[in-house]
């Protein structure tokens, strides 16, 4: 179990057989002629929380979107617990994984978005039980009980019958977190989850996430501009620039004595 406040060198061990939970192999992503990620290799261990930092346009969000299959890989492979996510190698050829199989893999992955993306035509409760009922095949009552507990955890049980439009940004994001957790994800992707919030609402969302980090061993891939949050919850921080890793280390090391000039410049600009 990862501790609440990770210390340097406390990065959790990989899965028992040593297979990384999430692995990028030679990943290339281009949008037209624009190469966003160029031959990227990295992995995340079971239960590890990794924060991606770097200037905008450095490809951080693209990494999360690739893991969620919201973007198609241009080259390379992503594996989840050793299983191919988007493409696989067969007979020396790179073969696309069919949608159905992709969906089976992505049920292990949850994502929280910058703009919440709750379904406005559903109540808070309906938002949360939608996937458990229609993807995992849970009964409505069972799903509702579980949703109730999750809403309680994020402090939103009292709004379960409200529509998203009746909630503040912070409340919507807390519901979105509960919605992602309702699928019991093993990997959680947090994509600038506080960037669209009024400053006074950021705290409630980060508080909820810190609790979740403390209470579960979900692996997390985090893109954020909240450096204190990154410092509090992550085991490892990866500094990106122009589609590749500039340096990576424990948050203490990165935030106190970063080695590279580009990391120093970036941190000076944002801190």
């Amino acid at each position, binding site marked *: 179990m990862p501790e609440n406040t990770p210390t340097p060198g406390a990065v959790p061990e990989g899965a028992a057989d040593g297979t990384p939970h999430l692995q990028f192999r030679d990943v290339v992503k281009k949008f037209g002629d624009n190469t966003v990620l160029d031959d990227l290799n990295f992995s995340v261990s079971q239960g590890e929380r990794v924060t991606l930092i770097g200037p905008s346009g450095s490809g951080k969000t693209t990494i999360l979107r690739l893991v969620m*299959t*919201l973007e198609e890989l241009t080259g390379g492979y992503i594996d989840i617990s050793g299983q191919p996510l988007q493409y696989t190698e067969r007979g020396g050829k790179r073969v696309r994984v069919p*949608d159905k199989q992709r969906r089976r893999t992505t049920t292990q992955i949850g994502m929280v*978005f910058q703009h919440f*993306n709750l*379904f406005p*035509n559903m109540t808070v409760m309906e938002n949360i039980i*939608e996937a458990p009922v*229609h*993807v995992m095949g849970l009964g409505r009552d069972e799903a509702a009980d579980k949703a109730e507990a999750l809403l309680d955890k994020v402090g939103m049980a009292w709004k379960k019958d409200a529509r998203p439009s009746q909630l503040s940004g912070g409340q919507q994001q807390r519901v979105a977190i509960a919605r992602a957790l309702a699928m019991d994800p093993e990997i959680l992707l947090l994509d600038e989850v506080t960037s669209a919030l009024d400053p006074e609402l950021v705290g409630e969302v980060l508080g909820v996430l810190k609790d979740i980090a403390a209470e579960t061993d979900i692996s997390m891939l985090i893109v954020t501009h909240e450096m204190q949050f990154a410092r509090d919850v992550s085991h490892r921080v990866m500094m990106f620039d122009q589609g590749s890793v500039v340096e990576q280390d424990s948050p203490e090391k990165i935030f106190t004595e970063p080695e590279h000039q580009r990391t120093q410049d970036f941190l000076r600009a944002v801190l």
Partner: protein
Amino acid sequence: MSDIWSWEHAAAALPALLEGFKVTLLATLLGTLIAVVLGLVVAIVRRTAPRILSLPVTGAVEFIRMTPLVVQLVFANLVLSQFFETLTIGIWVLGIHYTTYMAEVYRAGIDSVAKGQWEAATALSLPRARTWRAIVIPQAVRNTLPALGNYAISMFKETPFLIVIFISEMVNQAQNYGANTYRYTEPITMAGLIFLAASYPMSLLIRRLEKKLA
């Protein structure tokens, strides 16, 4: 007797007009039902089906939109009258003609659903069919309700074209009354007023709906 307007003729024409109005109403309701359902099907096919299926559908839609309703009515009646009742043909032609317009409305509605909604559905691993049914269509239809209502009114006002295949809707009844009595002013005026009385409240309703959705 007054030459321009006779209340007696107005009153005498009324029963036949109301009889015709029933046909008008029936054609509008069933035609709208066909257009509302088929329009959605067409919009979804054009968006999701492989080219081999979506291309012919697109071709048919464009063909129907680019030819006049009257021509379609006469043509369909010529070809199909030995198999179906005239009213059935009329209703289907109206319905399919408006299907092509409603499909465009739905297309705009589907496009207006935010990209983030699709992405959230993917993030929850929802199957495609469920995403359409539970998330995209409800939001798209909500956005398109006012436009769909306006097309329903428009169809209502175009039902008199059914005259060309001799369906006794309201305006046809008015003409018949005129042909028998040489009094056209009263029945035609009354028919116009009945149209107004029916479509104006509906347009007010749609305007309220628009405000509510905005």
